[in-house]
């Protein structure tokens, strides 16, 4: 079940009604409401495929047990052993389901050269495995580091792992953030409920009205890049940048909004990344929960920026490369990660830093945007050959046999999507940002809410497009 389906609307109404009714009926304990949310979350996941629930359960039990044993062990060796057990189980599951075939295919040429013929398996990728695996790993690592007390409540912990708003595509919520919220009794707040609803609505608009509309154009161009001229390909690449941002941030908004309506607070996952003035700034704004996870559990343990310049650059490259690989078992994702790693390393170069500091703000922004766009080409392309063709079209301006003006005329709804995209980014003053959130007490909020709801119903593309990050 995904957030853009009619079934989800009905599911959410039922969950909200029952949850708040249980909380009203049993005011002193969050237990009954949490149990219901846990069952609802497992149903939500089983809606995709009931077999996936087994993995969720294994991950939950292993990490709950491991954390309890880490916390109760006094021996450093035993603590490490239990942490290793948790890491191996989680990363083992992730590695098998996500990367087994990738590594087999990558190793096949070498294996065949020595007379072996490895075969791939038909493996169904469980939805959200990358997300909930990282989430549970952060829990056991934080317990190991003594930053967090091991949970004594299996129900709360199971809910932390399986909580449906963020289960399949994040945000990656830390246990330090969410577990205490589950153990507290939550009071209903109309203002918070309303805020959650508006955020859910905003997310749906981003995903359906903007991202999916842009995808109509982007998908066609990337399916046959060789037939399009330079201008067309530029439009498609910029369109993809819009698509992936609005798709993913839209999903995050919906997840955060649903959690808010249920009385929980999730961390922000995006802060207008296309307004970044440096690559480091970009990664402070894009998929924030992942980038902070990589920083806290990979970059800093590797040494972070505490060592020599060479070591810092090495750590950046390793972190970003693995971050790219996290997105998918494909060489294009690996290269995307390396690209961003190199961009961060190059940005730290002192000579280049002096040159950059002399640039005006728009020029700085443009360099960052170009770097990000070139990275998106890798991210979107199905293979390296397509990516190379795209780069050629973008920079070498090779004429194509097809009419280069073919894509210049875009249908009105796509133009509307692009307009919304530009307005949302360019008009981002503090005052306007508050207005765009349709505050509780604003006279225009009912009008705007009606317009958004009708727009979702009338102007969304026919035909369902899954969220981009569901494939990760």
């Amino acid at each position, binding site marked *: 079940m995904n957030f853009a389906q009619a079934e989800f609307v*009905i599911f959410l109404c039922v969950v909200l009604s029952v949850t708040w009714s249980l909380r009203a009926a049993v005011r002193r304990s969050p237990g009954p409401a949490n149990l219901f949310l846990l069952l609802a979350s497992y149903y939500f996941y089983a809606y995709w495929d*009931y077999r996936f629930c087994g993995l969720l359960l294994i991950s939950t039990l292993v990490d709950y047990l491991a954390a309890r044993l880490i916390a109760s062990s006094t021996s450093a060796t035993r603590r490490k052993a239990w942490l290793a057990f948790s890491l191996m189980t989680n990363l083992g599951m992730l590695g098998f389901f996500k990367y087994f075939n990738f590594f087999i295919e990558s190793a096949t040429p070498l294996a065949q050269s020595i007379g072996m013929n490895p075969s791939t398996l038909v493996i169904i990728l469980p939805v959200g495995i990358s997300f909930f695996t990282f989430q549970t790993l952060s829990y056991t690592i934080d317990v190991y580091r003594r930053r967090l007390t091991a949970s004594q409540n299996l129900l709360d912990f199971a809910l932390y792992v399986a909580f449906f708003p963020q289960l399949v595509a994040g945000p990656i919520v830390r246990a330090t953030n969410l577990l205490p919220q589950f153990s507290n009794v939550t009071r209903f707040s109309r203002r918070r409920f309303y805020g959650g609803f508006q955020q859910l609505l905003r997310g749906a608009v981003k995903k359906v009205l903007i991202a999916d509309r842009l995808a109509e154009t982007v998908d*066609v161009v990337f399916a046959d890049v060789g037939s399009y001229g330079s201008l067309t390909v530029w439009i498609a690449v910029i369109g993809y940048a819009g698509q992936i941002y609005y798709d993913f941030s839209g999903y995050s908004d919906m997840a955060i909004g649903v959690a808010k309506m249920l009385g929980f607070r999730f961390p922000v996952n995006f802060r207008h990344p296309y307004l970044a003035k440096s690559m480091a700034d970009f990664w402070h704004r894009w998929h924030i929960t992942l980038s902070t996870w990589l920083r806290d559990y990979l970059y800093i343990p590797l040494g972070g920026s505490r060592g020599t310049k060479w070591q810092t650059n090495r750590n950046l490259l390793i972190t970003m490369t693995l971050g790219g690989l996290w997105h998918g078992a494909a060489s294009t994702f690996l290269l995307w990660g390396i690209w961003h790693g190199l961009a961060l390393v190059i940005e730290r170069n002192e000579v280049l830093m002096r040159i950059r500091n002399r640039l005006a703000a728009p020029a700085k922004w443009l360099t960052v945007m170009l770097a990000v766009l070139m990275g998106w080409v890798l991210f979107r392309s199905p293979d390296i050959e397509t990516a190379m063709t795209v780069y050629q079209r973008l920079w070498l301006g090779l004429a194509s046999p097809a009419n280069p003006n073919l894509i210049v005329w875009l249908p009105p709804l796509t133009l509307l999507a692009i307009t919304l995209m530009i307005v949302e980014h360019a008009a981002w003053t503090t005052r306007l940002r508050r207005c765009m959130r349709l505050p509780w*007490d604003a006279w225009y909020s009912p*009008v705007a*809410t*009606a317009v958004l709801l009708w727009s979702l*119903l*009338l102007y969304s593309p026919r035909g369902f497009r899954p969220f981009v990050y569901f494939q990760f």
Partner: protein
Amino acid sequence: MTPANRLRPIDWIVRWCLGLLAGTILVGVTSPVFVRTYASRQWDPVRSRNVYPEGLEYRWRSEGHATSSVGPHGMMGRTDVPLSTKTRLALWGDSQAEGVCLSDERKLWSTLQKYLLDAEVLPFAQSGDDASDWIEQFPGVEEALAIDSHLILLHELIDLESLATVSLPNRKSPALPLWIDRIPDFLLEAGRRLLLTESNEVRRLRFAIGPASRVSKGSVTGEIDACEAPNQSATTGWSTSVERLRRGTVLPITIVYAPHVSLTDDTESTSLQRLASTLTEQKIQFIDCRESLRQAIRSGIQPFGFHHGQIGSGHLNSDGYHLIAEAVSKVVVARPSESITGN
């Protein structure tokens, strides 16, 4: 204005009700830019079928973005019955010939008139029509409108093949009841989106746990999918279909074949050769536009699609219509003296 935190609950409810209503009205007023027309059809005794009423401004808002004027007898884009003595050519086909994606002056009938200087083209093509629909309408339009010959734009062979098996009369539509006209189009569009899937099947919600198996239940409106008649050309040849077509009228018939074409393979050659020879036997002219469509694509002109990236798919555009009109103008000559007597 009173801040919301000082509003009584009833005032808050009133504010929201009025605001939602205002938003709805705003959407309703602006919706014609993005929402197509929904209209009932009315019985036309000349064509013996239900057609859009004369005077309707029919908006099309998905592929292409145009408004068509509906004329007498449901003619899409043509608002008059000609008074001149020029040869009258009845244009038939499905949505490819109807041309709602284009403005009236760029539709196929209008483009043909620019090429066929001595002819008046009357457009009777309607989305979803096939050969059974065309021959049912021949007698009425010939008598009432003094038609001199018929021109059929054939996009899919199945539209002609099905004539071999379908039983007549084969009345399609009425599409929508009359009370539809009283409901704003945007409400109808919303209802359609809620109740039907993108392939016009009734939307069925699934609450069972996955993995899901998908079963298609069949289309509601029949507008999208042509019925799949058995492939007559493979077994009995085209004789049955073509004979029925020939028996439908004594006037000259020209068939223009303009399918989606592939630049690399050609799987239809054998079937088309049989069709062409069968048509010749029945004295029906056949114009195969495939090669000219391929030539156009090779030279960078896309005859299908509407410049929003849908290369090679969708409906014929203005360039495609010019290609067809050019091909027709080289072959079709007004020849009222050469009508074929029926059996």
